[in-house]
C-alpha cells in the first residue's frame, strides 16, 4: 500500500509546542507556537488541535484551529487565530511565552491549488479569513491573481483587512455595522467582485450560512468553490464521528462525512448545505437507505433468518421486539431522524 506510506510521511504529528507569543489582534487572539514538525508538514487549509486546561483539566475535548501561517524561525513556528468564547479558549488566551502545549497537526484536507494560473477570489467571514493568507502566498507563487473579499459584524472582527489590502490585487471589505468597508455581508458584494475580478475559482472559509450562499451564487456562474467548514469537533483526527455533515461523493452517494479528515475543505457543490444538521433520507446508511432489491436479496441469502427471527421474536427472546423497530432499514424509525428533506 504505497498510498498508506506516503500518507504516513505527510501525516500529522503529536508534539509538545512551546508558546512563543500570544497577542491581541483586534477582537481576536493570535498564538504562535514553536512546533517544527507541524510547520514542516503544513499546507494551507489545514488545522491543529490543542489539549486545553493542563494535565488535570476538566475540559476533555481538543480545540481545533485553522493554521494562519507557518514561519521558519526557531526551527518552525505555527500561528493560529482564535476568539475567546468559552473556558477553553479563555485558558488559551491566558498562556504566556514558554508555556508548553500538547499540539497535534497539521490535520485535514488542505485547499487544492489550481494547476494553471487562475484568478482566485478568497472570501473570509470573521476570523475564518485566517487560513486564507497562507493560501494566497501559495497561489501567487503559482502565478495566480488573488482578490480578497472579507467581512464580519464590525471592523474589529475583520481579521487581516490590512494584509489583504497590502497583498491582494483587490481587497473588498464588508461589515454589518458599516464600521469598515461597505455596509452589509460578503455575499452582498460577491456578484460585483466576481465580475470585476473575472474570478475563476473561489476559496472560502467562514460560517456555514455564508458558505452556503457563496456556493449558490458561484454555482450560477459555474465558478468552483473550495469551502473550509467550521464544524464542532471533539478529536480532530477522525475517530469521534462528531463533526459530520452530508457530502455527496464522486459516486453520487451522500455520506455523513467527517469534516476533520474528509475536510475541512470541501468542494462547495458537494456539500448539502441545506441539510447540514440533519441526516438526509437518502444518505448512506440512513434509515431505509438501502435499495429494496438488495434488502430482499440479503434476506434470502441469510436463509430468511433475520426475517423469521423478527417474526417470532416474541418467542425467541424474553423481551418482545416489535417488527419495525428492528433497527437498520426497518422503516419504523424513519420519521425520527429525517429532519431534512
Amino acid at each position: 500500500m504505497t498510498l498508506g506510506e506516503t500518507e504516513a510521511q505527510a501525516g500529522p504529528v503529536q508534539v509538545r509546542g512551546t508558546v512563543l507569543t500570544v497577542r491581541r489582534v483586534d477582537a481576536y487572539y493570535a498564538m504562535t507556537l514553536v512546533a517544527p514538525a507541524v510547520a514542516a508538514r503544513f499546507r494551507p487549509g489545514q488545522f491543529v488541535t490543542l489539549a486545553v486546561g493542563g494535565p488535570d483539566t476538566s475540559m476533555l475535548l481538543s480545540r481545533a484551529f485553522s493554521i494562519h501561517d507557518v514561519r521558519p524561525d526557531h526551527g518552525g513556528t505555527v500561528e493560529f487565530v482564535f476568539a475567546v468564547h468559552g473556558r477553553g479558549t479563555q485558558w488559551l488566551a491566558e498562556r504566556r511565552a514558554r508555556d508548553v502545549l500538547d499540539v497535534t497537526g497539521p490535520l485535514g484536507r488542505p485547499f487544492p491549488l489550481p494547476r494553471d494560473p487562475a484568478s482566485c477570489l478568497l472570501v473570509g467571514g470573521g476570523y475564518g479569513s485566517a487560513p486564507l493568507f497562507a493560501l494566497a502566498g501559495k497561489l501567487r507563487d503559482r502565478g495566480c491573481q488573488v482578490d480578497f473579499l472579507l467581512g464580519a459584524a464590525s471592523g474589529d472582527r475583520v481579521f487581516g483587512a490590512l494584509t489583504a489590502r497590502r497583498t491582494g490585487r483587490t481587497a473588498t471589505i464588508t461589515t454589518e455595522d458599516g464600521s469598515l468597508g461597505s455596509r452589509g455581508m460578503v455575499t452582498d458584494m460577491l456578484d460585483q467582485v466576481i465580475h470585476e475580478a473575472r474570478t475563476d475559482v473561489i476559496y472560502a472559509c467562514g460560517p456555514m450560512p455564508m458558505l452556503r450562499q457563496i456556493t449558490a451564487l458561484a454555482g450560477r456562474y459555474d465558478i468552483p468553490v473550495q469551502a473550509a467548514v467550521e464544524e464542532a469537533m471533539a478529536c480532530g483526527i477522525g475517530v469521534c464521528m462528531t463533526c459530520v455533515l452530508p457530502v455527496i461523493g464522486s459516486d453520487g452517494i451522500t455520506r455523513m462525512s467527517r469534516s476533520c479528515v474528509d475536510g475541512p475543505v470541501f468542494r462547495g457543490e458537494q456539500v448539502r448545505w441545506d441539510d447540514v444538521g440533519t441526516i438526509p433520507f437518502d444518505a448512506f446508511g440512513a434509515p431505509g437507505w438501502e435499495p429494496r432489491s438488495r434488502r430482499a436479496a440479503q434476506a434470502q441469502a441469510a436463509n430468511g433468518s433475520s426475517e423469521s427471527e423478527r417474526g417470532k421474536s416474541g418467542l425467541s427472546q424474553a423481551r418482545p421486539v416489535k417488527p419495525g423497530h428492528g433497527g437498520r432499514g426497518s422503516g419504523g424509525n424513519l420519521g425520527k431522524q429525517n429532519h431534512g428533506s
Partner: protein
Amino acid sequence: MAVDLRAKLGHIELPNPIMTASGCAGAGRELAQFMDVSKIGAIVTKSVMLGPRSGRPTPRMAETPSGMLNSIGLQGPGIDAFLQRDLPWLLSRGARAVVSIAGGTVAEFADLAGRLSDAAGVTAIEVNISCPNVEHRGQVFACDPDASAAVIEAVRSRARYDIPVFAKLSPDVTDIVAIAKSCVKAGADGLSMINTLLGMVIDTDTMRPHLAGLTGGLSGPAIRPIAVRCIWQVREALPNVPIIGMGGVRTGLDALELILAGASMVSVGTTIFHDPSACMRILRELEEELTTRGVDRLADVVGLAHESRVATGRPVSPHAAVRRK
C-alpha cells in the same frame, strides 16, 4: 526489573492490559499516525453493525465537567466494509482486534458473530448491548437480564468456540450484578464495563436541548467512580469472570484503580480525543506505578482491593500513600 504486564482475555493472552475503548479509536487506522497499534493489548473497534448506518444528526457532542456527551448513533459502514478494509489492515499492522458488534435484534447480533467467525484473525468479540444512542430504551438490551442473555446466548452459539465473547454492560441499571450473572450464565466469557451513562445538556442561550438527538452518553473522568463501583460489585459476585474495565481512564493510576477493583484489562476512551497517543502513555505510566509499588506481575494486583479490605486495609507498599498524596 520490568513488570510482567501480560493480561488474560478469556483464554487469550495479551502482551499488556491497555486497549482502546469502542467508539473512541475507529478501527485503529487514525491512531496509527500517532502510535504503534501493535504495542497495546488490543484495539477494540467502533461497534460494527450488519449494514451501513448514518447515525444521528448534529450537534452530536457536548462537553461537560470532566466529561462529554456523545450522540453519534453508531454511524459506520457496516460489516462488509469492516471485513474488507479494517480487519485486514489491523492484522497487517500486527494489532490484536477485539471487534465490538451492535445490532437492533438478537438475529443481527448472531449474524455478526457468524460473519466475524468466518473471518480469520478476530481476537475477541465485545457485544455492545448497552449503546444508549438508539431509538428507544427497549433497544438497550443491557437494561434487562433476559434480553441480555438472549443476545449473548445467540452470539456465543454462532461465534467460533475459540473466540472469547465479552458482554458490554450499562451502568444505567438498578442491579448490574443481576445483568452480569445473566450474561455469564448465557455463555459470556467475560464482561466489559462500563458503557456511557445516559445524560442531557440544555443550551441556556437557545433554551433548547443541545444535542440533536436530545440525550447522549456521558463518558470521561466524571464517570470513573461509577466504573470502579460497577467493576467492584461484579468482581465481588463473580470473582472468576474476566473483566475489561473502562470509564474515564486518563492516567496509569486511573488504570490501576480499575485493575484493583477487578479489571484484568483496561480500555482507554474519551482521553484519546485530546491525546491521540494516550494508550501508550497510560501503559508506560501503569508500568511505572506498578514498579513504584514493588509489583512485578500485573496479574497479582487484579482485584487486589477486595483482599486488602479483608486483610489489613493498608496499602501494598509505603510508596503508595506518598504517591497518592
